[in-house]
């Protein structure tokens, strides 16, 4: 087991240090120009901004050049991801495509799809959604019922996906559809991944508003929506074989504990340059915890870079990251309890804290719930 828990102490190489400088300079310029508010609150979906990032070469960084990628390292991508995340930059348009949809297509997609879509992702023009959950199957992906039925030259899709983030803005969706019934021997059998063009007739998108009032989730209804054969991603009936490596990318990134990092910086600001012992200890523990998380995440990026599939380590980073980030607004609230309301930035702090408190419950949902992750870790430990 000990070998499973390897976390080498990676030092980011010089090209990452140089790149970070470059990204920071770009971000600072954009903030000065009023493109977005680093304290959050701006719409995270921006066509203009994503195209600028694409032009910089910061989308599809690790992908082959022949598909518009830049053949740079995972560690360089890591630096770009964390700098944009911490700055609250509006990257929603391209982020899912860059993190997971693109890599899945590169690995399993048809050549036509690769040539058609990947270069446009790299330019920052394409938004992807992920169509996995259904009204009666969430964490239990393999219970999916939305059906793909073979027809002349393609497939007809019928059924409903739900909790689909970005669907109302997405150009494409990678969907998990049932092409055969599950077998007795393998309940995971019978599902196939497709790249779905969202302009396809027969697709209806209904908003599902979140408790914050925001619109991110959607219900996506398919009624005889036609998918050409070359939209199949990977093996028919064999999607389950393709899922695991994808998850290591999805779970271990810095976005898994930096989504509400502004709570910590705002807390430091509101407690001032000479906090009392309680405030200092509280900040110190939070900083130590997030530092440790980040070092783990860097280490996993290094393992991905080296061609490994650190599935258990990635699940651990997501589990610890989620728990930490879910507790963060509550700890910040405790630590700021005695701050004078008239002190500097108190109003901003309260506003950001309110928002972070409200979104904290969803952090477990994205990228695998805490229960699912602990099941994966337990399997890695040899317990099941």
């Amino acid at each position, binding site marked *: 087991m000990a070998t499973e828990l390897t976390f080498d102490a990676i030092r980011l190489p010089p090209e990452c240090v140089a790149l970070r400088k470059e990204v920071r300079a770009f971000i600072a310029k954009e903030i000065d120009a009023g493109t977005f508010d680093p304290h959050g609150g701006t719409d995270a979906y921006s066509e203009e901004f994503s195209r600028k990032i694409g032009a910089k070469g910061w989308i599809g960084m690790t992908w082959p050049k022949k598909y518009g990628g830049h053949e740079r390292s995972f560690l360089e991508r890591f630096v770009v991801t964390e700098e944009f995340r911490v700055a609250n930059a509006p990257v929603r348009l391209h982020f899912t495509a860059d993190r997971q949809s693109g890599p899945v297509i590169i690995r399993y997609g048809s050549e036509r799809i690769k040539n058609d879509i990947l270069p446009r992702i790299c330019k920052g023009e394409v938004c992807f959604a992920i169509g996995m959950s259904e009204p009666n199957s969430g964490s239990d992906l393999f219970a999916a019922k939305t059906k793909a039925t073979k027809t002349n030259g393609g497939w007809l899709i019928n059924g409903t996906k739900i909790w689909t983030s970005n669907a109302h803005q997405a150009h494409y969706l990678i969907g998990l559809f049932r092409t055969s019934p599950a077998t007795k021997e393998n309940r995971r059998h019978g599902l196939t991944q497709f790249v779905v063009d969202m302009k396809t007739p027969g697709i209806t998108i209904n908003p599902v508003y979140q408790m914050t009032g925001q619109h991110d989730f959607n219900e996506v209804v398919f009624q005889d929506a036609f998918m050409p054969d070359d939209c199949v991603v990977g093996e028919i009936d064999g999607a389950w074989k393709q899922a695991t490596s994808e998850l290591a990318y999805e779970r271990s990134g810095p976005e898994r504990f930096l989504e509400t990092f502004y709570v910590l910086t705002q807390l430091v600001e509101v407690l001032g340059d000479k906090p009392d012992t309680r405030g200092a200890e509280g900040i*110190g523990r939070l*900083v130590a915890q997030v530092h440790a998380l980040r070092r783990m995440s860097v280490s996993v990026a290094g393992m991905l870079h080296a061609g490994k599939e650190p599935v258990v*380590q990635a699940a651990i980073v997501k589990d610890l990251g989620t728990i930490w980030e879910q507790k963060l607004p509550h700890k910040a609230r405790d630590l700021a309890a005695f701050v004078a309301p008239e002190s500097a930035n108190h109003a901003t702090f309260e506003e950001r804290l309110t928002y972070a408190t409200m979104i904290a419950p969803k952090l477990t949902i994205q990228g695998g719930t805490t229960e699912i992750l602990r099941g994966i870790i337990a399997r890695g430990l040899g317990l099941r």
Partner: protein
Amino acid sequence: MHTKNGQGMHMDSANLVAEAATRILRDVADPQTVNRAANDAWKAPAWAALEEAGLTLAWVPEGLGGAGAELDDGFAVLREAGRVAAAVPLAETLLAGWLLAQAGIASPKGAMTCGPTRDGEKLTLAGNGTLSGALRSVPFASGAEHLAVLARREGGGAAVALVEASQARITEGTGIGGDPLNAVSFSGARPSAVKDAPAGLDGQALLLMGATARAMQMAGALEAVLDLSVAYANERVAFERAIAKFQAVQHNLARLAGEVAVAIAAAGSAADALAHAGAFDEAVFLEAAAAKIRVGEAAGEGAAIAHQVLGAIGFTQEHILHRFTRRLWAWRDDFGNESFWAVKLGNMVAAKGADGLWPMLAAR
């Protein structure tokens, strides 16, 4: 401090040294054997074997009587020592040798310890070269042949001194780990050697080194605790199945694995930072302080989960679990506990201001 470039080579050498340490430690300090032993007779041959292999003075250059290993080699050895909950002053002697070497003082043979290990404790070197002052809790002072201490010269400036244990008043005491933890006082003691401390080597630097050493020991002990907890859950049958099959137990062990993983990552990162730093700068402070805080938290959480999984058998003298959990609790306290470092780190972050936080975290 050692400075060094190039990642490939040092990792190999750290692995080699750690492998040698593992072999010896398993052989001479196997936790089962030690736990069953009727007395401490195993300790002398165990120490002799460690000394013979050069592990006790790994951080001392050959010219000063040591093995001349790199810092990360020694830290890797400490993780292995933690894996067997070694009840010998290996970390203490390593640190003492390192401290002496910083000032160019040769290390004697035999067990040593070092100080001060807590903030605010001060020793003074008088103009006539004698040493005075009191240290409240020094691990393994009882049984050490020499002490390596950092002291303030009456005329100003810091110095490193090597003192024979017979020159100190050492009060018997045992810490929560079951190992010696002693009050030590000097009153006009005559050191065997005194030299000026190099620039940058102050009380906090020694605490940072000690904190990282303890973090590595705790990471190793936590790994062992995970292994034995998983093995027990797979063997122990209740309600007609192995308790490992119960989801509640699985999730507890998954949480334990998370704490072990974060301990390995944080301690390893701090050790790596120290091994490649040129000075006790801000980056080293962040790494070592954060490691001691987070690994200390993991020690508390991890020990609690392991005891939960093992139930009554884990609470017996007969089972080896206590050899690990008691030392995890003890090592949390040495060289600054979580709260101590958190206040220091929090104050540093506050003084830099909110805008300085992310650049500091992302520096590595």
